């Protein structure tokens, strides 16, 4: 009986702590995504929470379709611009009004609806499936796709097959391209009990708190995670990765052409060798593109100044800057 009372007391304390974390400035975050049978995961609809780190504490919000909320009123009489990208575009750490789609809306004078389909942990291969599943292609006039090609900056070259990471909190759909026109879709595995439990627990602050605690004490004990990025830079064979990226961009372009949508690619490639490969491909396919690193060099802006100090993601000013650069490069006529 005493043991039961002790267990109940501890449980009551844990529940109170969960409530405290949820309704206090110490919000750490709960999972903003849920399982999706086609992509692996997608944003929860009509969800809002706070993303906290040492250098930001930002409220983020998704709309009824799980898109990053607009800071303008969606006008059904105007055509849409679909934006695809990873966590840099999803931008849960950026004030909503500054996120690239809202900045672009302002830059283009509100002539088009800019819709943000960004999702953390995705690359071009997942973007194709996101586009097919969630976007209303018939309403779209343009499609802007962000491709990041360097370690530490989005790492799309590494991330073509998320299953390699063995992370369950990533979108697990995978496309395997044999050539630009032929590919096989590997659907995400159905959720097993462990994943279901994990998804349930991830709705609570305590889960994130526990993960953070484990990570902290593991790092204190210097236990290294086996991470794919630990492979020495330059020694990697990127052949498959390029195949996947080129194939996905090609297929997205094909889909865009079929629907009379203007396809634009925004490349972020601090590694100039990667830049050459993707530039040559995009030129060959006649897909208009802009390399943001080129543009930053022209503006003499240091790459280290465009991210948060506590987090490698682009900061608010960078989102606004990139919107201005895109505006200066593409007119996106109505």
């Amino acid at each position, binding site marked *: 009986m005493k043991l039961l009372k002790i267990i109940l007391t501890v449980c009551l*304390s844990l529940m109170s702590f969960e409530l405290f974390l949820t*309704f206090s400035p110490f919000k750490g975050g709960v999972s903003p995504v849920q399982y999706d049978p086609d992509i692996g995961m997608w944003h929860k609809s009509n969800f809002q929470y706070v993303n906290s780190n040492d250098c930001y504490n930002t409220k983020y919000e998704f709309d009824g379709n799980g898109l990053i909320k607009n800071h303008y009123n969606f006008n059904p009489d105007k055509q849409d611009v679909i934006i695809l990208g990873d966590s840099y575009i999803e931008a849960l750490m950026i004030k909503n009004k500054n996120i690239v789609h809202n900045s672009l809306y302002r830059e283009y004078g509100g002539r088009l609806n800019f819709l943000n389909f960004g999702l953390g942990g995705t690359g071009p291969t997942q973007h194709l499936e996101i586009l097919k599943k969630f976007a209303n292609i018939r309403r779209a006039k343009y499609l802007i796709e962000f491709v990041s090609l360097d370690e530490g900056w989005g790492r799309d070259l590494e991330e073509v097959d998320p299953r390699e990471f063995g992370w369950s909190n990533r979108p697990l759909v995978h496309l395997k391209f044999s050539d630009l026109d032929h590919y096989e879709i590997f659907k995400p595995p159905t959720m097993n009990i462990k994943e279901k439990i994990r998804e349930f627990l991830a709705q609570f602050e305590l889960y994130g708190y526990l993960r953070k*605690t484990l990570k902290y004490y593991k790092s204190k004990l210097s236990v290294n995670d086996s991470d794919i990025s630990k492979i020495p830079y330059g020694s990697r064979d990127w052949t498959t990765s390029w195949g996947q990226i080129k194939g996905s961009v090609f297929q997205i372009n094909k889909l865009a052409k079929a629907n009379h949508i203007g396809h634009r690619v925004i490349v972020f490639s601090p590694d100039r060798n990667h830049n050459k490969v993707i530039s040559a491909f995009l030129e060959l396919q006649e897909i208009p593109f802009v390399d943001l690193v080129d543009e930053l060099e022209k503006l003499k802006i240091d790459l280290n100044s465009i991210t948060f100090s506590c987090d490698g993601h682009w900061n608010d000013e960078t989102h606004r800057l990139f919107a201005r650069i895109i505006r200066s490069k593409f007119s996106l006529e109505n």
Partner: protein
Amino acid sequence: MLFNSFEFILIFLPITFLVFFFLNHLGRGEASRIWLLGASLFFYGWWEPVYVPLILGSIIFNFGISQTFLKLKSKNRFFLQSWLVIGILSNLALLGYFKYADFFIENFNWSLDAKIELPHIILPLAISFFTFQQIAYLVDSYKGEVKESSFINYSLFVLFFPQLISGPIVHHKEMMTQFHQPTNKRFNINNVFSGVLIFFIGLFKKVVVADTFAIWASQGFDATETMALIEAWIASLSFTLQLYFDFSGYTDMALGVALLFNIHLPKNFNSPYKALNIRDFWRRWHMTLGRFLKDYIYIPLGGNRVGSFRLNINLITTFLLCGLWHGAGWIFIFWGVLHGIALVTYQFWSQMNIKMHYFFAGTLTFLFVNFSWVFFRAKEWKDATKILVGMLGFNGIGILNLTPIIYIVFFLGVVWKAKNSMQWAEQINNRSRAVYIALFLGTFAILQLNNFQISNDNTMKFIYFNF
């Protein structure tokens, strides 16, 4: 070392506790006191070992003077008085050098247009507390009220780690008799239960309540340029609650830890925000400091045995010094003088014999205290002005931020209506109830303590550590 740190809770305290009672169990009372003394020095040195010789030097010096009083009591009064003056001035000089050097030089430079470089001396931890405690001891010793001939005992009186850093400011007679009582050398399970319960109440008050309010107070005082009405009130009330829960949390932890060693430290708080007037407030807030100011400043100045004009001057002088004790700056002096003036005003009011309804009396007292804390918290005059201008609504109403408002309303209810931790702990005479409450609060507080650790790799310091 901080009470709200894992190294204290998980390592230092259990080891000190177990070895202390083990030595007592073996009948080694002297060894147990030496052990406690060594542990206290380690506790103090953990922060900055370089200041250990300073505190030891201060102890040796004051003990030496007290021994002079003890041995030369038959000598002429002038000789003893001279030693007392030397003792007090030396203590004040030490405090003056470490705490007020920058302040004095700054003012000297300003008034004479001089350019003497500021030394920027790091304030040794607890110097205000151990200096006051030892001045009180010297005075009591001069009066023949204390007769301590053991250096170990005297050192333990100053260094006993639960009260070393931020009080309560204890009298020798309150402490040392307890160390000598044979029953206190034995492990007392009731004291352990009560001690753990009070410690966890204090830890909860500090890491869960005070440190939450600290965020909203800091956002207002430090991070915002101009403040609207709602934001300014959130900032000022957050600090008012932060300060109370921080300092009373610290005191609870000190009392709880001391109780584990069968030592009863004096109470330092008695629901101060329930005060119905400013005198009542000072009888409830930092009670041992109030006692010190009364016994060693206000009464020697003449107290209330003098005419009403002198009495008022005495009150203002005492609180001016109280402000200066809290911090080396004009803003602290102003805060002290504000309280002195409030006490003088209260003196007039009570002479007029007009009764105020307790609700209005309590509200007025609280609003004044809240107003004065703005100066206590502000780093510069402009910060205080910014908050006060906002509180008066000169910058508009502002945006309703519900979370801090809900916390403020709830915890104002707690400080106004609920029993304080001491009353609460005294009432829990059922041991198993104490265990469950301690378990609940302890689990919660340790989870939050860990939250600070994993988020900032740090723990939040207590406000009174600055003094």
